């Protein structure tokens, strides 16, 4: 078991999210940075969709009651296992009684803690993710509180003695400019309904992530985006990544906990392969959008899959070595 000693932030149990329940209005939920969760799981020899903890911005302390393999991925939060610093994207073995401290990240917005076998909570509608609005999944559908105890399902993978790391995706996967998070966007149905100046501004502006940003969506601040004609849309399905523009002219990116349907005009949609970059942008950070098409998005998807396949193969090789030579 793991006991939460202090958690001022909105820490939730998340896996890769729910699939197949949109028709009942159930959003995907799941990790905001699904890539980080997958990395954390692969480092432990877990299925990449096992449940972990999503830990946004603020510090967290917890205690391991039993020996346990765990990993950290996502934001570099200056983690300490007892008095031993841990690198980001790293798997290590905790001893019973060890205290893990995650500090406010130097960069990035969300850290993920994975445990051997995944966090053991019941599956609800095909997932262990916390559905905050409808209050189900995870731990009673709520964020973790001080004193909560969570169990790992466990696995028999033998971790190398000094642990095991991954090249962080921000390094491994082609990105971005200086101090700005660059994400690829496919223009959406109403793109052509925005006036020329607005379309130009959409691609050129640095969009500030405002404080009104959470798992449901990021509200951005920048130049006003104006339609060249009034339109009132019929509501339709909305997936994470859709950039809606309410009448006020300031865009909102819909994310993991977003409504499954909506009717605000949409100027574009962030491709799936870049949603993790948004999850790691925090209030005050700047986003920039670059135009992309379906073929480029498919390439980006493949690039991510290749990165994960290489990681899984590398981890598997090191686990086999540790088992064969007893170096664990």
């Amino acid at each position, binding site marked *: 078991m793991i006991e939460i000693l202090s958690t001022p932030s909105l820490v939730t149990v998340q896996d890769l999210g729910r699939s197949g329940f949109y*028709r*009942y*209005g159930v959003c995907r939920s799941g990790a905001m940075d699904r890539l980080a969760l997958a990395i954390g799981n692969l480092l432990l020899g877990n299925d990449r969709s096992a449940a972990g903890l999503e830990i946004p911005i603020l510090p967290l302390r917890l205690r391991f009651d039993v020996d346990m393999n765990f990993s950290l991925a996502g934001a570099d939060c200056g983690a300490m296992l007892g008095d031993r610093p841990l690198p980001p994207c790293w798997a290590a073995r905790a001893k019973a009684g060890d205290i893990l401290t995650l500090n406010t990240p130097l960069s990035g917005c969300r850290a993920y803690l994975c445990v051997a076998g995944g966090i053991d909570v019941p599956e609800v509608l095909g997932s262990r993710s916390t559905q905050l609005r*409808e209050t189900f999944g995870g731990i009673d559908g709520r964020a973790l509180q001080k004193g909560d105890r969570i169990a790992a399902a466990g696995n028999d993978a033998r971790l190398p003695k000094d642990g095991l790391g991954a090249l962080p995706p921000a390094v491994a996967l082609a990105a971005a400019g200086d101090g700005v998070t660059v994400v690829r966007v496919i223009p959406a149905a109403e793109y052509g309904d925005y006036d020329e100046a607005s379309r130009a501004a959409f691609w050129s502006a640095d969009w500030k992530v405002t404080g009104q940003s959470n798992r449901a969506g990021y509200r951005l601040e920048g130049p006003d985006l104006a339609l060249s004609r009034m339109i009132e849309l*019929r509501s*339709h399905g909305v997936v994470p990544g859709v950039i809606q523009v309410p009448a006020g002219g300031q865009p909102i990116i819909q994310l993991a906990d977003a409504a499954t349907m909506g009717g605000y005009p949409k100027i574009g949609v962030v*491709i799936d*392969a870049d949603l993790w970059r948004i999850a790691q942008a925090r209030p005050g950070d700047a986003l920039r959008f670059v135009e992309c098409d379906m*073929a480029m998005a*498919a390439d980006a998807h493949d690039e991510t899959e290749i990165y994960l396949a290489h990681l899984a193969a590398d981890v598997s090789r090191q686990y086999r070595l540790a088992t064969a030579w007893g170096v664990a």
Partner: protein
Amino acid sequence: MSASAASLEEPRITPLGSSAILFEAPGAFDIEHQKRIWALADAATGWDMVVEAVPGMTNLMLILARPPRDLTAFEALLRAAWDTGDEKHVEPTVLELPIVYGGEGGPHLRDVAEGTGFSVAEVVRIHTEPDYTVYAVGSHAGYCYLGGLDARLFMTRRKVPLVSIPGGSLSLAGMQTGVSASAGPSGWHTIGRAEISFFDPERQPPALLKPGDVIRFKAERVIV
């Protein structure tokens, strides 16, 4: 200001990011087109790579297992399936739902009266008159998008969405009206309140109503 609802001449098929597709039906916003959308959803559910086909308001979203390199194959499938003209017929469950209009649970009832030029009593009368058909379930878990709102009550969405309205809130915007299944943000005009549970993850299916079912609103009380 009343909303102009433009109709498409032809089906419009656009990417919704890298792994979803939006099909928008041409023609009027009415039950005949919606029945064709339900039939299209049933057809698309069996297609390769389609994880889920999600009906909206005379439109359909396909969620795909991975990003396709282009939409050509799906465009052909969607157009052919739409052109069959097949409609899905549903044996409806009818839900009678008592509503307290206005007051704390319906803070925008007066705005709707002012915006439409009717008295509050007339707004309530016009709103309780029709049988509303569930066109789609979505937005949040168990929420029903309803067709059948009287054109005289059409209002554009509020400029600034409210951060949260409670579950059970009855609201309207554009050509649509419905009752929130849980607390959450809303850009619509909230005009009343009901006591009802539309969603339970332990129930099979988890949503109380399905597309094709019917809701009748009863004015239990009107607070002016």
